[in-house]
């Protein structure tokens, strides 16, 4: 056991010296939020590019996951709240300097929009589908007519959602592991990659899978690049930063991070994807499964480890 004498004028249980307020709900939400952002980004991107026909799973089928992931994620966030009945107070203000305010408003918009997106494809996905009410059918016609502008708005919101899942952590200036500007792009890249993985898992179209496979390979490389820079930044930083990094470089998160996130969650699926592109037969579910699993472990490790890093010594 590591004992420590701590003298402080403050007495804030669960905050000093270690943050102990975020449990499984937060990383689960960050993961599902990133996943939904990734799926919606690629769905909207291919609609804007006019490639709906070639990317059927990306644009239609896979987007069903997005609202489900968002609703489960928001459920987890709600569960985490101490004063559940006051959640609506987030919507009484708009604060540009608060990532949580950005997130709350983005979610408020993107969740119903993702449901509308899926609904607008129901007739194409399930022949004979009828909305029963005239106004719903009229609304659907209007959405289908304005699909491209709708896609533009949702694509921008998806990027904000993906970045915000990282910024939410990096805005904690008291936690050195989180307090780095790389976390925003890193979480966005990871979210895009997990989103792609989910689409690839669902897609049966060889051409579509190949296209997504190629993008995913690039995203994984970008993610590895960002992680290397994350650690380079820590190692070149002050003592608290090197201390934070040491949790992953010999400390208690070394195994979970390097084995499950870096090797099994990124490097190994990237190798398999590269082999698949060169014509080798790889079980279709395997790379997506590993990427999704690695992404989940990544969120859990970052949230867990970040809470025990601190500036006070």
């Amino acid at each position: 056991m590591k004992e420590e004498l701590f003298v402080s004028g403050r007495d804030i249980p669960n905050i000093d010296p270690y943050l102990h307020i975020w449990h499984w709900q937060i990383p689960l939400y960050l993961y599902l939020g990133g996943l939904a952002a990734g799926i919606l980004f690629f769905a909207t991107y291919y609609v804007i590019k006019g490639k709906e026909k070639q990317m059927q799973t990306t644009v239609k089928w896979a987007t069903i996951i997005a609202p489900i992931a968002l609703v489960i994620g928001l459920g987890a966030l709600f569960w985490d709240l101490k004063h559940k009945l006051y959640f609506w107070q987030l919507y009484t203000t708009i604060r540009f300097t608060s990532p949580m305010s950005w997130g709350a408003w983005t979610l408020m918009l993107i969740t119903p929009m993702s449901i509308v997106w899926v609904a607008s494809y129901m007739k194409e996905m399930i022949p004979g589908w009828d909305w029963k009410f005239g106004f719903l059918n009229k609304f659907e016609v209007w959405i289908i007519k304005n699909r491209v502008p709708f896609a533009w708005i949702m694509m921008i919101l998806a990027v904000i959602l993906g970045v915000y899942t990282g910024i939410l952590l990096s805005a904690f200036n008291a936690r050195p592991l989180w307090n780095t500007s790389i976390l925003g792009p890193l979480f966005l890249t990871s979210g895009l990659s997990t989103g792609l993985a989910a689409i690839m898992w669902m897609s049966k179209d060889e051409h579509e899978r190949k296209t997504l496979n190629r993008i995913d390979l690039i995203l994984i490389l970008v993610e590895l690049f960002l992680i290397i820079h994350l650690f380079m930044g820590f190692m070149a930083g002050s003592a608290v930063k090197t201390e934070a990094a040491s949790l992953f470089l010999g400390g208690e998160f070394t195994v979970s991070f390097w084995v499950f996130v870096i090797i099994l969650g990124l490097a190994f699926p990237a190798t398999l994807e590269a082999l698949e592109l060169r014509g080798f037969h790889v079980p279709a579910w395997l790379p997506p499964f590993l990427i999704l699993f690695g992404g989940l472990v990544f969120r859990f490790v970052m949230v867990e480890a970040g809470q025990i890093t601190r500036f006070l010594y």
Partner: protein
Amino acid sequence: MGLLVILTVYITGRGLGASGAVKSAVVTTADAIVPIHAHTNPYYSKFISSDKSPMYNWLVFESLGIFFGGLLSGVIFRRVKKIRVERSPKITNKTRLTAALIGGILFGIGSQFGRGCSSGAALSGSATFSFGGVIVMLVLFGTGYAIAGLFKKLWI
């Protein structure tokens, strides 16, 4: 195999093993489902400590590596196909799986009495000149050779 053992000892400072990973998984499962039994059982309790999970063991990670490494080799040499049961054409899948289950249980029990399985006791053991390891190697292959005829129809 010999080169592999040399490399493993060089890198990790110890030998290989496979049954240890299964043992860790069994102990962890027992500890999660019936913690009182796991803590009072003289054998299980040896592997339970308060600060680290029994899964925090190099053999567990080695086994993970064997699985994924084998998979990678299978992909590269185009041996990965649909999941199937490999057996003699004369028997059913059910017979094959039942025999495998019984064999696995016997192997698991035997490896715990023998302080290791074919890789832990026989291979790594004899590589380090352990007398027990040599005995295990002889008994393992000797018994296998003697009774293989009885189980021939499971394979050919």
